[in-house]
Every structure is written in C-alpha cells, then in structure tokens.
C-alpha cells in the first residue's frame, strides 16, 4: 500500500484484484443489494485513490479499507433514508439447478432462510458477525475497524450469535 501512496497506481489494480471480492461480500451482507454493493466497492476504491496520502502505513491496509467501506455504507444508508426505504431486494431467483432431491432442496431453503435472518439482525450485530465469520478478521482487527476494544468485540459477537440463534430457531 505504501507503494500506492507514492504514486505507483498500478499497485492499486493489484489491491483491487486481491480485495474486491471480500469487500463485495461485506457490503452485500450489510445491504442485501447486489447492484448497490458493486457501486459501493467502486466507491471505496475511488476513495482509496483520492485519499491514499492519508494512509500512513501504520495499521493494516485491511483495517483502512473497512473504515472507508463503513463510511461509504453510512452515506448509502443516509441517501436511502432520504429517498425512502427501499426494501432489500432479496433475490429469490429460482436458479435452474435442475430438480433437486428433497434433502438438498430442504438444505438450500434452510440456508436461504439463514441468510435472511442474518440480514434482519441489527446493523451493529450483523457487522461484527460478518466481519468475523465472512471476512476472517481477527478480533483485534475488528476492534481497530470499529474503534472499540477487543473485549467489546467479544461481547458483541456473543450477543449477535445469540440474537441470530433466537431468530433462526423461531422459524
């Protein structure tokens, strides 16, 4: 990343290749919207380019990336709020997987239900779960992204799992 800062823009392409998928995954989990998530990935990388001089090399690149992503998300929700709430486009496109045997179909429905339940968690809980389960961040890294202590991260993850469990078992 330090190389990008001193103007080597080609390195930015490398970073994009390495990180755009996980970043997309994070944004998708936070919004449940495909198109917007892609727009936001673009937006995050644009901000990185613009503000690469603020990246001092202290702390990890990943932390910085999620910081920017959270700001972009905040703007996104603010805008969405202004334009009226648009329901997450839960795309239950019936993919043509052929006819699934009963057991597999059941499994698939169960997982889609779980995805829906994750989406219905409070943003705060969803965020820690997504960061620890899907983005493979260490608690210390999550703490740096969210600007809270490692202890607080532990408590939040615990709480989030319990919430998800309650939601999931209800269904």
């Amino acid at each position, binding site marked *: 990343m330090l190389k990008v800062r001193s103007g080597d*823009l080609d390195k930015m392409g490398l970073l994009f290749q390495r990180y*755009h998928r996980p970043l997309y*995954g994070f944004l998708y989990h936070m919004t449940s919207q495909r198109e917007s998530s*892609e727009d936001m990935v673009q937006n995050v990388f644009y901000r990185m380019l613009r503000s690469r001089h*603020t990246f001092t090399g202290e702390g990890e690149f990943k932390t910085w990336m999620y910081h920017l992503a959270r700001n972009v998300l905040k703007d996104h929700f603010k805008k969405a709020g202004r334009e009226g709430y648009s329901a997450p486009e839960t795309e239950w496109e019936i993919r043509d997987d052929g006819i699934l045997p009963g057991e597999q179909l059941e499994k698939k429905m169960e997982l889609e239900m779980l*995805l829906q339940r*994750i989406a219905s968690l409070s943003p705060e809980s969803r965020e820690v779960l997504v960061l620890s389960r899907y983005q493979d961040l260490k608690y210390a890294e999550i703490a740096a992204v969210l600007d809270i202590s490692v202890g607080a991260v532990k408590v939040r993850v615990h709480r989030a799992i319990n919430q998800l*469990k309650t939601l999931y078992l209800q269904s």
Partner: protein
Amino acid sequence: MNSMNCEKRKELLAGWMDNQLTEAERAEMEAHLAICAECRQEMETNRRLWVSMGEVPVPAPSDKMQVRFDAMLETYRQEQTNRRPGLFFYLRQLFAVRPGFTWAYSLVLIVVGVGLGYFLNRPAGAGGGFGAGGDRGLASGGGADKQQLQTLSAQVHEMREMVLLALLENPSASERIRGVSYTSEIKAVNKNVVNALLSTLNNDPNNNVRLITLEALTHYAEDPLVREGLVQSILHQESPLMQAALADVMLKLQEKKAVRPLKELLQQKGLNEMVRTKIEQTLTRLI
C-alpha cells in the same frame, strides 16, 4: 457449575469456534466444556449455526466490476498527469502525514500575525503605548515597514529550515526525500542545514535519499563547507552508485582536492569494476 462463570465463558464460545482465543483461554475453555454439559450443548448449537453460516450462498460480484475499475483507474491516472502537483499539494501531504504540523503552522501564523500587528502599531522610536502610536508610526513608516518585512521573511525562512530538519529525521525514506527537496525553496542555507544534509549524505540507509541529497548539495557547491563535505564523503560511500555519482560531481566542479580520496578509493579491494573505470577516467580529466 457456577452460572456466573458459565455466562462469562459463553462469551468466549464464539472466539473458540472462530479460533480467536489465546492459548490459555482455549485450554481453559476446553477443560470447562469437558465437565459442563450445559455449555457443551450451547457450544454444539452454536457450532452448527456457525457451520451453516459458512455454507450460506453469497453471490459473486459480476465481471463488469473489473472493467469499471480499470476505466476509473485510467481516468484518474490521466487527471493526475495533467495536474502538476503544486506547493499546495505538498503542503497538504505534509499535513496529512503529520497532523501536528497543522497546529504548529496555525500557531506560528497567529504569533506572526500578532507580532506584525504590534510592530505596525508601535510608535516609531522607543516609548509610547499602543494607543496613540498609529499615526506617528505610519508617518515615519517606510524604513520600519521594510525592516519588519525583512524580519518576517527571515522568520518564514527559519520555519522552512525547521520543517526541513524535522523531515530529515523521519523514519520514512519518502519523507526524508521530501525534506531534501525542500532545499530548493531555501535561498541561502545555513550551517545547520548543510551539516544535516551532509550527515544524511553519509549516513542515510537509503540509496535514493543519499542520491537526492547529493544532487541538492551540488547546488550549494560554491560554499567551501559544502565542497569540503562532498570531498570527504567520497570515502564514506560504499554503494557503487554513490561512488560513481560523486565522481561525476567532482568532475563537474573541477575539484582538485578530490584527487587524493579518489585515488585512495581505487586502492580499496572489492571496488566495483565499473566504478573503477569511471574513477580512472575522472582522474585523468581532473588532473
């Protein structure tokens, strides 16, 4: 089992599944799971949930993202090459890296501002208070204004030197390079700056920084102190790149004093062959 303890441990369950616990926490957790049925059951439910979460399908981003990104990068690159970074850009970078500078600059500006106001309103000649001074000050203004302006520009100059010296101490090589490039904005360098630059030239771990410093110093070669320092630096340099660059500089300056250290350099074992040839050529043209 103490339920209070269990509650505390349950907080660690997620970390246990996620492999985020320290060795000690992990051992304790596992020992506890072995004896506490309630926690074991909770762990099992959590674990199943955790595994299921891993199987949830997440759509992959579309391929057009890469295309969009490449287009954006290209546009940005063009914008950048069209716009030459000005002094403002460098200042902004400086502040971005060292937020402390913002305060320092503000403070200096305030002090300078107040100082200027005070000087302008002070009656010419000594004595007198603030109040009645204005008119008289203006009347006999000319010379005093000039003097104040000089003081002021001297202060600005001094500040630039301070920034330069601070940047030379920075652990990041690119910061130090920027520090060196500051010399182009300082008309006359004083002894402190020369010494700092010479010490960078001789001791900086980074080749690029030393090269840039050498280039900056050659601008002040008419100063005998700088000349002397450059000559002495010949034997300090171990990198072939620097040795060759110094030989070039000596040739350009037609510095006869360099002959002796260059010859000494030739005696050194393990001298790079290219450098050896270069120095031999330089010597023939110097003598």
